[in-house]
């Protein structure tokens, strides 16, 4: 509703000022309150309407609260609804007055008309006044058991409202359990859906403080509940289907038959006219088949047509939402969409945000067979009157040129752009030609011939000017009048606003000087003088640096300015593959539209009911040295990422894992394991690997290769518990297990004072625990609160222990939660863990 308080200042002059009208209304309402004359209800309706219309435009009508309540004694349901609406809006700010309404709302909750019971219950729960919660419990309890489904539907959401006003009241009244019962038994599908939504929210929020809630939350994705909901899927409304499908996408079926059963059951959901249902289904299919490469690819083929139909059937807004998801899939597996490129052609009347996505998709799917046609199409857009799109199209042509091996024809096209003599076309093209030359220096001859003809007067945009200047410097020997062009630019030094351009100018004139000294000497002198007098710090510094360099030793200066250059093989991708995987995990959410994972734009408490607990947000991986261990390999891996298709990449990843696991040196297993995570492009910090609302692991693939299992030779089993010194577990498997297993032991441990002192460097704890064969997979936090995730494996069998350990160094205490494949051994492990922990700092 419109802001009730302080709103009178902001309304526009055309609206009534409020004061006089409101007191008039007050009078009239008072007169009507006691009246029983025929036609009273009609007059009341008119007055109520006025009140609500004032409320909507932002006039404070809270002063008529008591009159409204007095008038609420009516059997007219339209009047009642308006009254409820009014009360719901103002009760929060007038808790004392709200008490007045409790009476009639409670009475209405017992009305014989189920519609009125439901409405009253909804309004009662919407009051949002904390000290009135005691009045909610009774009616809610009755509402959940009401014979009418409308009332139960309202009551289920009412429980959630109560939870948000007072969580403890809600939990103490045992409402979550009642909801669960309803969810599993109610004949009305919407009641079931509301219970599910409420439970997801309640247990999601409770999970940070209660073990039971964590268990309950995990129970929601257990097989019986998932199957129960799936079997009723067609009874649900399209919106409730989305909720259920989203839940199912978190379920990990144990075998492939189950996966196929679920997919067959939901196959027809792909033909639904509601895009939200289709996208939720697609997400489920993609998640289910992550570990089955060939089926996963079939899913891509299967979902193409429905996605394209949705893109073209809805409003521009709807098609944008769907197209963004298609964009994500195309970016992940461009090969699979190579033959569909014509669908990504722009239509002239599409909004910019749609065209931009399409251009990116066209760029991605370009390959040897379709490049000619795609580039031809893009060239049409480049000549378009729509300037932003023309710019994007030119950039797209450039990107295609950079990713192709045969760029011959494309370079010609780019050079033709320069002949169009449109400022913005020239500007974009110059930037691209520069990048192209950095990758393919062999093209310099053709390019330079054309670039040489461009007058720098026609280039105004800083980026383009900088590019032109760079080329003038770099290819000074090939361009006849390079020194003179530079000289001209230096003469206009004062008028050049962009420091970037001035920096480039300095460097270019230096390069030019070493190639053609006599012609450039004058220009260099002028440039250095202007640079030294420049107000911009960087420009000044660079000029000074060059000046001193020249003073010191000219040949050294030459080697600094003109070092031998290697062609750039791959330009850095703007987004890391970790981020991309994370976004993929959050399919069918805003992350896809923003092209950012949810933690970048969402508050912690809103990241969704299935997010890990909040503190995890700051976790980073345990051993920092790992970062330094294999930088070379990392770069290489990234390079490969850029070139390979998704599937190849995944194979490569798994391959890398195997290799390193086998080669791991005896004692350094934890470190090398971390290094493996580095090379395989997996996410390192848990805050990134744990998808906020989709903890379905992205790398179930790793499971396929048995990487979750220990491959170390087993020493003879000897009691009590022996741990594997070379335990290996990758973060996603950890994550998956952590979600699937329930907590077997949760207890408090203690740290020695020396240990606390040693916590100054949390790394030390990791090394200490490692010496006890307990490996850290992620850690984070700051003094005094630290959080660690550890794992260990039994020496004799592939049974894993997972530990969450929260250390408070000011209290010398540690909260320990242990999950285990083999529950029977968890006690022994707990003892081992605690003894290891207590010894920390003693050595």
């Amino acid at each position: 509703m419109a802001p009730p308080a302080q709103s009178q200042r902001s309304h526009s002059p055309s609206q009534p000022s409020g004061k006089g009208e409101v007191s008039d209304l007050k009078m009239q309402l008072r007169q009507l309150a006691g009246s029983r004359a025929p036609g009273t209800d009609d007059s009341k309706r008119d007055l109520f309407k006025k009140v609500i219309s004032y409320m909507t435009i932002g006039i404070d009508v809270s002063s008529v609260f008591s009159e409204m309540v007095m008038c609420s004694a009516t059997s007219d349901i339209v009047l009642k609804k308006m009254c409820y609406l009014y009360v719901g809006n103002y009760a929060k700010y007038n808790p004392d007055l709200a008490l007045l309404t409790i009476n009639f709302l409670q009475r209405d909750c017992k009305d014989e008309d189920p519609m009125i019971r439901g409405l009253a219950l909804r309004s009662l729960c919407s009051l949002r006044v904390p000290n009135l919660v005691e009045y909610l419990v009774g009616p809610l309890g009755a509402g959940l058991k009401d014979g009418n489904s409308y009332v139960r539907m309202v009551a289920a959401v009412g429980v959630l409202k109560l939870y948000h006003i007072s969580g403890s009241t809600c939990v103490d009244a045992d409402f979550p359990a009642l909801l669960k019962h309803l969810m599993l038994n109610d004949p009305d599908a919407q009641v079931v859906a509301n219970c599910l939504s409420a439970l997801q929210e309640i247990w999601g929020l409770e999970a940070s403080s209660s073990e039971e809630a964590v268990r309950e939350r995990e129970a929601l994705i257990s097989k019986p509940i998932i199957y129960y909901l799936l079997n009723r899927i067609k009874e649900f409304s399209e919106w409730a289907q989305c909720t259920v499908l989203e839940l199912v996408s978190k379920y990990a079926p144990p075998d492939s038959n189950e996966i196929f059963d679920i997919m067959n059951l939901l196959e027809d959901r792909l033909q639904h006219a509601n895009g939200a249902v289709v996208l939720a289904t697609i997400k489920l299919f993609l998640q289910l088949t992550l570990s089955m490469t060939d089926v996963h690819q079939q899913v891509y083929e299967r979902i193409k047509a429905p996605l394209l139909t949705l893109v073209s059937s809805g409003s521009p807004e709807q098609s944008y939402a769907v197209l963004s998801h298609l964009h994500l899939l195309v970016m992940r597996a461009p090969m699979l969409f190579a033959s569909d490129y014509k669908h990504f052609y722009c239509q002239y009347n599409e909004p910019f945000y749609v065209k931009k996505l399409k251009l990116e998709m066209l760029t991605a799917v370009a390959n040897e067979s379709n490049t000619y046609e795609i580039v031809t199409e893009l060239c049409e857009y480049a000549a378009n009157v729509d300037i932003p799109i023309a710019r994007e199209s030119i950039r797209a042509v450039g990107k295609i040129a950079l990713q192709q091996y045969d760029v011959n024809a494309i370079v010609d096209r780019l050079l033709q752009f320069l002949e169009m003599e449109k400022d913005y076309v020239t500007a974009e093209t110059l930037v691209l030609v520069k990048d192209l030359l950095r990758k393919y220096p062999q093209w310099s001859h053709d390019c330079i011939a054309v670039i040489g003809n461009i007058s720098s007067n026609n280039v105004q945009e800083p980026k383009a000017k900088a590019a032109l200047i760079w080329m003038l410097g770099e290819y000074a020997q090939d361009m006849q009048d390079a020194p003179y062009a530079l000289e001209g630019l230096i003469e206009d030094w004062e008028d050049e606003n962009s420091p970037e351009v001035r920096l480039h100018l300095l460097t270019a004139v230096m390069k030019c000087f070493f190639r053609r000294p006599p012609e450039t000497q004058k220009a260099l002198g002028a440039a250095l003088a202007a640079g030294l007098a420049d107000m911009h710090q960087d420009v000044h510094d660079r000029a000074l640096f060059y000046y001193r360099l020249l003073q010191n030793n000219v040949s050294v200066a030459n080697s600094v300015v003109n070092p031998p250059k290697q062609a750039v093989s791959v330009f850095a991708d703007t987004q890391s593959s970790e981020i991309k995987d994370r976004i993929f995990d959050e399919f069918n959410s805003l992350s896809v539209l923003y092209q950012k994972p949810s933690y970048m734009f969402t508050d912690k408490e809103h990241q969704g009911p299935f997010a890990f607990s909040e503190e995890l947000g700051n976790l980073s991986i345990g051993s920092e040295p790992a970062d330094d261990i294999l930088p070379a390999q990392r770069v290489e891996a990234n390079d490969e990422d850029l070139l390979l298709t998704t599937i190849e990449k995944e194979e490569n990843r798994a391959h890398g894992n195997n290799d390193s696991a086998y080669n791991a040196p005896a004692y350094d297993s934890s470190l090398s394991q971390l290094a493996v995570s580095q090379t395989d492009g997996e996410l390192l910090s848990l805050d990134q690997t744990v998808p906020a609302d989709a903890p379905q692991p992205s790398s179930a693939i790793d499971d396929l290769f048995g990487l979750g299992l220990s491959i170390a030779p087993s020493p003879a089993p000897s009691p009590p518990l022996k741990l594997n010194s070379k335990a290996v577990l990758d973060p996603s498997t950890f994550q998956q297990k952590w979600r699937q297993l329930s907590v077997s032991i949760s207890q408090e441990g203690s740290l020695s004072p020396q240990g606390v002192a040693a916590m100054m460097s949390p790394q030390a704890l990791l090394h200490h625990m490692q010496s006890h064969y307990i490996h850290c997979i992620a850690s984070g936090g700051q003094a005094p609160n630290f959080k660690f995730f550890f794992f260990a494996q039994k020496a004799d069998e592939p049974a894993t222990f997972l530990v969450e350990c929260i250390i408070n160094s000011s209290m010398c205490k540690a909260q320990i939660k242990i999950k285990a494949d083999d529950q029977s051994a968890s006690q022994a492990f707990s003892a081992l863990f605690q003894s290891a922990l207590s010894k920390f700092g003693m050595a």
Partner: protein
Amino acid sequence: MISQFFVLSQRGDNIVFRDYRGDVQKGSAEIFFRKVKFWKDDGEAEAPPVFNVDGVNYFHAKVVGLLFVATTRANVSPSLVLELLLRIARVTKDYLGILNEDSIRKNFVLMYELLDEVIDFGYVQTTSTEVLKSCVFNEPIMIDAARMPPLGPAALFMQGSKRMPGTAVTKSVVANEPGGRKREEIFVDIIEKISVTFSSSGYILTSEIDGTIQMKSYLSGNPEIRLALNEELNIGSSGRSLYDYTGSTGSGAVILDDCNFHESVHLDSFDVDRTLTLVPHDGEFPVMNYRMTQEFKPPFHINTLIEEAGSLKAEVILKVRAEFPQNITANTVVVQMPVPSYTSRISFEMESGAVGQVTDFKESNKKLEWGLKKIVGGSEHTLRAKLTFSQESHGNITKEAGPVSMTFTIPMYNCSRLQVKYLQIAKKSKTYNPYRWVRYVTQANSYVARI
């Protein structure tokens, strides 16, 4: 989960504003409107339908010039929220008959009532007009339909064919007519939006038909309906490459690339005899959406000729030929063409005997515009435009002008040849014989000829 829903007028006034969860600040409508109005990120002209400001996600859909907006702090499914916004608009239209600022302002109490039932604490409860009827009690206040410009795709029937009752499409599903009794009738509209791109030499580069079978039912008692489509209807382009224009056109088969259906549709016999069975909801809804890239005959052929006449002058000759039968008439045809930016003046020369044609030179965005009220099937129309330039053109004018785009509406014509063979209503009694309207219309989506 949705935190707030509101409808803003073009000027940014709140028409309705409903807060469901209280976790987004009250001033969100103002923040939203300012952001949309001054959207100039990276030279992008218009705000995308979804954006984030300080942790609040704003979703909006433009409906008849109004902004339907939802806010949330959670990372929800954008498709779901945008679908919902449009569904709310549709339900409102079902109730009010006409959806515009005036009708919503007059019926804002009814709007609040609807919104209370559609969403509870941010969770969607129902968007079915049918279900809502049982819990919404306000009577809609009707506004005068005659004064309102017709809106929405179905509205185009009002100008076209005289056989249609003009008020039908603006009739509320709940309000009674002045006579007291409601007229029993059902409308089935086959609406096709076509996109064609012609190369400069006149070949078809790409073409697509995006169709919808839309239903609006005013039948009482929810009878079952059977809708029979072409028997030779194939779905899925398996075994045949897309854009294969060499395929035979003579055969009667209609080949759809893909289609989807409203959830009330039963497809039990669809594979056998291509009939759809459904119990129509009250209100308007799409029974089926389909997409087709099979070759079809474009309704218009466009021919453009540009001749330079000296360094400061050029002549553009536009020819439009209607390639559909003579008993069909296209209306509200507009042909547009961007001209070189240095064009200072255009003088037009219309064909002799031209009726209902207007020409205009839009100076601000340098576009030539040619409007034709009607084009009868089989006819050809020509426009000559003499361009005067303020500076010498550098070289090729065709690179500075075009492409030619066209918008039009053709009632009672569809390019895909998809047909509703019959519309059967399960009979309640012998005397029960409601009005059935099956209507076809073709509209241009993106109809472009390069020059």
